[in-house]
Structure formats: C-alpha cells, structure tokens
C-alpha cells in the first residue's frame, strides 16, 4: 500500500519535471546546440540589410556574430559561406538584368578564386587540427579589417572634404599606367573597357578565394577596392562582377567545407539565408539614397569597429584561460 502511494508520487513528480516545450528554439544538427530561431533570423535580416546597402556579402559581420552566440568558429565559417552564396546570387541576378556584369573578367578572377578557396580550405583543416584556428581567424580579422577599414575611412573622408571644398571629384585617367600594366598575358575585357595582364587578375581571385575560405567572408569589401585601384575597373561593372566571384567562391567553399570538414550546418544556413536575402533587398533601396562617399565612410567605420572588437578580444585577459575541444581524428 505504501509502495503504491510512493509510485503515484513518482509518476506525479515525473509530470511536473517533464520537458518544457519552447517553440522558438531549434536544435542545429551540426552545430549541436539549440538556438532561438528568431535571433538567427533577425541577425540574417540585419546583416542582409547592411550587405544590400553596401553591396557586400556581410560575412565579416555574420561570422563573428555566430561565434558570439556560442556556435564554434569552425561551423560558423563553414555555414556562413552558403549564406553569402545565397545573398550574392540574389544580388548578381539583378545586376545581370542591368547588364552590369563583366563575365569574361569574372571567369578570369574565378580561375584564381577556385585555387585560392581550395588552398584556404586545406589551411583551415590543418589549423583546426593544430588547435590554432581561433587565433588565426582572430589575428586575420584584426589585420584585414583594421587595414581595410582604416584605408576606407581615410579615403572617404578625403573625398568628402574635396567635394565640400568644391574641387572636382578625381576621375579615372585612362592613360595612367602602373607596373601592373607592364606584365605579360594581356587581355582585353570589353564590357569593363580595360586592357590588363591576366596575372594580377588571377592573383586577386586567389587572394579573395583563400581569405574567404579561411575567414568565412565573401571578401566583397576587399575585392571591390582591389578591382578599382589595381585594375582601374569602372564602378559600373565592379559590384556585379564582384558578386559573381563571391557567389562562385562561396558556393564552392560550401561544397569543399562540407566534403572535407563536415561542418556545414544546413539548418543554420537556411535560416540565415531566409533573413539575409530579404534584408538585402531593403538595404539596397536604402543604399541608393546615400552618396558614394558617405556610404564608403560608413562601411569603413563598420569594418574598423569589428576589427577593433577582435583586437580587444586578443589583447584583453580572457575570461577563461582554458578551453576544451574534442580531439580531431586527423592528428
């Protein structure tokens, strides 16, 4: 009789201690942790808005945000690649309709980009097995974002001051040549109306592919200035072409990360994409209302801020000196 009462007690307490159902939480199968679906969606929207506004992929913002949520850097980098592929495809399609893409130049950049991505994924795997992936991602972010952000801020402030003083905006001088124009294998790109050597084009593609795979960024914010300053490409075709390159390098980075490291979380990627492509459309409309210099200054400040945040992370005494990670099989 006493046992019967006790068992009733057991059953009762089981009911009250049972699982609490949280409908907004979704369990990510590869990242192996539950996240709030609306937080991820909102992040996708916000980063998508910024990416649409500035014509960049937004990976340099999304990857750190995911890491901050507790997703391991490796999974974040691999999953963000597919998110960037989605938003750049959506962007590239609208540029394609406006005939603002130089496909010939895009393919030449790609040739370098694919090789760069493969090298990047290889280095990523290597660093992960050595336990130095986080620090490499951290240091690269600081260097890259600090330098690019700083340059953009300085350049755009100068441009703004020039227009304030009423001086004419510096135009592209078709006759100006740098040492890059002396290199062999010269090719003519009709849509962009430039005549340059294939070597710097390949090199730029390689760098973007490599950096993108290691750091989980599309590299749009790097590629656009490189194409303008090194190849003297006109601004009309530069963003559309950069989006094509971003699209292909990020789509192939997704496939390669999935095939070698098994780290792409498709559920996470899908939520990010849904938010990202929507946000990008509104961002693009907001961006069209601003002047080019203002836009560049804002983007430069944003890039610089993320870089400083990473620098503080590296320099300040960490909250916990110790960390645990499963041992990789490959070592």
């Amino acid at each position, binding site marked *: 009789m006493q046992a019967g009462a006790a068992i009733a007690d057991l059953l009762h307490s089981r009911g009250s201690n049972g699982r*609490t159902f949280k409908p907004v939480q979704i369990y990510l199968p590869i990242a192996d942790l539950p996240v709030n679906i609306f937080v991820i969606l909102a992040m996708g929207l916000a980063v998508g808005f910024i990416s649409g506004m500035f014509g960049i992929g937004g990976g340099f913002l999304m990857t750190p945000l995911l890491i901050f949520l507790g997703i391991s850097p490796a999974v974040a980098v691999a999953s963000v690649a597919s998110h960037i592929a989605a938003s750049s495809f959506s962007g590239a399609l609208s540029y394609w309709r406006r005939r603002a893409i130089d496909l010939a130049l895009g393919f030449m950049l790609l040739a370098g980009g694919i090789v760069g991505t493969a090298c990047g994924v290889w280095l990523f795997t290597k660093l992960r097995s050595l336990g130095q992936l986080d620090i490499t991602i951290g*240091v690269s972010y600081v260097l890259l974002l600090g330098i690019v952000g700083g340059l953009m801020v300085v350049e755009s402030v100068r441009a703004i001051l020039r227009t304030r003083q009423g001086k004419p905006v510096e135009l592209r001088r078709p006759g100006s040549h740098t040492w890059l124009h002396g290199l062999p294998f010269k090719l003519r790109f009709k849509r962009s109306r430039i005549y340059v050597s294939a070597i710097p084009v390949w090199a730029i593609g390689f760098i973007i592919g490599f950096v993108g795979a290691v750091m989980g960024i599309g590299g749009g914010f790097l590629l656009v200035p490189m194409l303008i300053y090194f190849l003297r490409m006109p601004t009309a075709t530069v963003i559309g072409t950069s989006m094509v390159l971003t*699209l292909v390098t*990020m789509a192939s980075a997704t496939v390669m*990360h999935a095939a070698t490291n098994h780290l*792409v979380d498709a559920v996470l990627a899908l939520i990010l994409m*849904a938010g990202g*492509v929507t946000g990008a459309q509104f961002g693009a409309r907001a961006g069209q209302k601003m002047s080019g210099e203002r836009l560049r200054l804002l983007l430069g400040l944003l890039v610089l801020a993320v870089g400083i945040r990473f620098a503080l992370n590296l*320099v300040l005494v960490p909250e916990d000196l110790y960390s*645990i990670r499963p041992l990789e099989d490959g070592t």
Partner: protein
Amino acid sequence: MQRTILLAIAALVASAEPATAERLVASISTHRVMVTSNFTGDELVLFGGIERDAATVPRRGGYDIVATVTGPRQNLVTFRKKRVLGIWVNVDSRVFEAAPSYLAVLSNRPLDAIANSETLRRLQLGLDNLVLLQRASVNIADSAREDPFRQSFLRIKREHGLYRQEENGVTFLTPALFRASIPLPAEVPVGNYEVDIRLFADSNLIARTPSAFEVYKAGFEQVVTAAARDHGLFYGLATAGMALLTGWFASVVFRRD
C-alpha cells in the same frame, strides 16, 4: 509504458525471494532519448527499490544510494592560453583519453558521509575520484588531482552542465524506495549512457545494479547529420543548391524592374 515498468518493479519489490543480503532493483523512465529539432535538454527519472527479507540483518545506519551516469567516452583536448607577443594564444594542451563526455554522480547525502575516502577512490566514485587518463608522450597515466589542466577540465565540464555531482540527487520515498532525476542539458552528446547504481550500508558497498540508456538523433536531425557525415560532397552540393534557390527566389519576389 512507464507505468508498466513501475508496476513490474513494484512486483519485484513485493515478491520476497529467499536471500540473505539486500537486492537492488532499478529502472529508468526511458531508455531512448530522442534529439529532435525542438530538443532543449531532457530529464530522466531513475527509480528503484531495495529488496530485503526476514533473514536480512537490520542496518542501523540506513541505506545510501550512489548512482553514476557515464556518457560516451571521447578524447578531449584541454588548451591553456598564454600571452605571446601581447596576444593570447593556445600554448599548452593536454589530451584526456577516453574521458566521459557526460558524468553525473547522484547520491542521497555527501559522498564522504556514505563511505570513507579509501573506498570512494577504489570504486572511482565522485568527480574527485574520476580517473582521467592523460597522454604524456608515450605513457598514459591518470592525471594528478591538483593538476591545473584536470581542475579546469572538470570546472568547464561542470559549467556546461555535463559533469555534475549532486549530494541530494537521490531521494528516498520510503526507507526502501528511491528516485533520482538525471538532468540532460541540451548539449549532451549522442551515444550510449551507462548508469551504475550502488547501494551502501554502514559505509560498505552491499549491492550494485547496472542500467543504461541511449541518446540518439531522430527524424530530420538524424537525416541531416548522417548526410553531412557520410555524403559530405552531396550534402555540400545540396546546401549550395539551396543557397542558389533562395537567392533566385528572393530576386524574383522582390523584383521591381
């Protein structure tokens, strides 16, 4: 299902078989824990009874229960950061071989009140007595108790809710019937979990019974994980295809020209 197990246990407790020592019977509320897309952790209930008969000697100090739940074993690396050239870098590391990914030690009162430290160490009961094999070049040895790597490893595992030691984790409902809840946080690894229930009386181990349960990914989660692991290339192509589809869809939906 749960009720039938309980009834079976009640029957076992009630049926007095001839025995001189106590017998321990126990069961868990479920033996299969599904990780689905709405998984945010779970809590299992362990319950059991102590079976005794007329011939059993009375125990003056009463009974004590220690239940140890051990998750699948993993090789885990513990890194220590040090400042190098002004920045914090992982410099030192230790590999703990076949360390439990999950460990819960549940008892009805503090372990040192249940048995003496010698017994606890011999039975490897409690987090302090957990054997953590550490690889140092070619030799594998248990790590020293004060080793900072070991201490930090245990601390981080505890912070994640993956290691826990609860002195009031077991409740006696009647002198011979007990229950304990096994909390599983959202980040529990999938695999087989062993449950080892030990009965103490007067500081001596007098009975022991094993049980087990399995944590597994089910449905969509399982399909995605298996695809990512076994068919990485196709999984990657599918994800990339999904990205293109999403991008195309957005450009069609929001098209203005």
